């Protein structure tokens, strides 16, 4: 036996319409994208460990003191 469902404003068959089905897929994919971005924001950001970074050697001092060893 089939039950006839009616929504508050629209018939339940609207949920199977092409428009609604595509809209639902669009929102689903967007939500997935934002969820993936959210995961990226939850995770601690990975920076290059210092041993893989170029050394702190500088050709010349950047200090305002010309004789500085920095």
């Amino acid at each position, binding site marked *: 036996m089939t039950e006839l469902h009616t929504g*508050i404003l629209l018939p339940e068959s609207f949920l199977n319409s092409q428009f609604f089905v595509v809209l639902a897929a669009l929102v689903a994919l967007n939500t997935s994208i934002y969820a993936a*971005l959210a995961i990226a924001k939850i995770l601690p950001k990975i920076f290059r460990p210092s041993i893989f970074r170029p050394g702190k050697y500088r050709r010349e001092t950047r200090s305002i003191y*010309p004789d500085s060893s920095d």
Partner: protein
Amino acid sequence: MFSRAVGFAVIAIAVAGFAVLWWTITSTNSTLTTPPAAIVVFAGLPIMYSWQAPPLFAVIASVIIAFIVVAIFVGLEIRDINTSRRSLKGDSKPLAPRVIMDATRGVFYGPVTVTVLVPAHNEEDVLGATLDALHEQTRQPDRVIVIADNCTDATVSIARARGLEVRETIDNRLKKAGALNQALSSLLHQAGPNDTFMIVDADTRLKPQFIETAVRHFTDDRGLSAIGGLFFGEPGRGLLGQLQRNEYTRYARDIRRRRGRVFVLTGTASVFRAPALKVLASQRGSLIPGIRGDVYDTAALTEDNEITIALKSLGALMTSPSQCQVETELMPTWRDLWRQRLRWQRGALENINAYGLTSATVRYWSQQVGIAYSVFALWTFFLLIFLQVVSTDTWIWYPFWLSVGAIFIIERVTSVWRGGWAARLLAATLVIELVYDTFLDIVFLKGVIDIALKRNARWGNEARPAGAKHVAQKSHHLDQGVES
């Protein structure tokens, strides 16, 4: 005409992204798989649920595309910063660190000095706390000047009572930017390579180590042009205050994760090396928009955002150290917040429009497109929920989407973790912050429409002088070739 349509251009790019997604779904038939709803009985109540989920390949593909788009924009920004870092082109990047270092090599120009400028327009209620915070700095500023701009209250006497220098503006109709330009035009003449100017809003309290940290950075790096503060919200102001504090806490976290790479040299408190400001003023009307001789562009609604883009365009090195923190005033009502954000939003769009699409501005354009896209994403989500609710008489739970919701809650909570329990609790509700985001979305759209209709922007309670805008805009167009 393009300048008026800048917001629509941004929206059009976002819509194009949406259209591509829509087309992909219809052409590949990537609609959702919805198994029939099942029923479980929980605590005596029947609960309907469905394992509805989008096709896995479509999810993976769209996530990969999204990450590629983000990576491209981040990559372009880093490439621009690295180009400036290495540049020796004094004509196109006169503030590139290597150009500055060439000019100051082997000479000691004296220790770093800090002159604090506090622009104030009727700030008697808040100025005292701002000046107290300056007095409590672990490294005292060398000079503090309160720039009283058309004050009719006790601002001047409060400053004088503390023995501070006060400069009153003369016939200034160009707001904060005009007031600062007047003061800087005389101060910069006497300033040397290691003299710095710190601009502090009259409603902003510095954390005690701000100046000490800034001086250390300027001393260690003579190629450094500017330091921006990280702003946090003052306590109080109820729910609306907490919503703004959460937003600022997330912004500060983003900057930490960017390792201090500046997004905006905040108008609340930022420090500039004098030569950078001199070069900036001399390049207005040629390499960057504005009127030659002006440090701040008086046509910009958000002069701090504008000066950041200006310095970036000139190749300047800048940073936001995590110790340089300030506490700033929050908007007490939704109406005030609306006005403040409308100004920020319009300012941001007008600024990128004035500069056009360049390697220095691409990150700012992408931010605006991102906002426009998120407006569509959020509002189509609301539309879907609405249609679903009005088309059915049964409530169905979707475990897949509930888990996605849990991810969002975790992200919202962890990103405000440093804000304390009130911040975390508010974030965990998700819905309240969604309402706040929707409010900001509406502000964005209003900003786009206002620019298109050339409505007069408002600064606080007063309308912005139309003449100033006109003159400066004219010079933008002449110099940048932007169509009017």
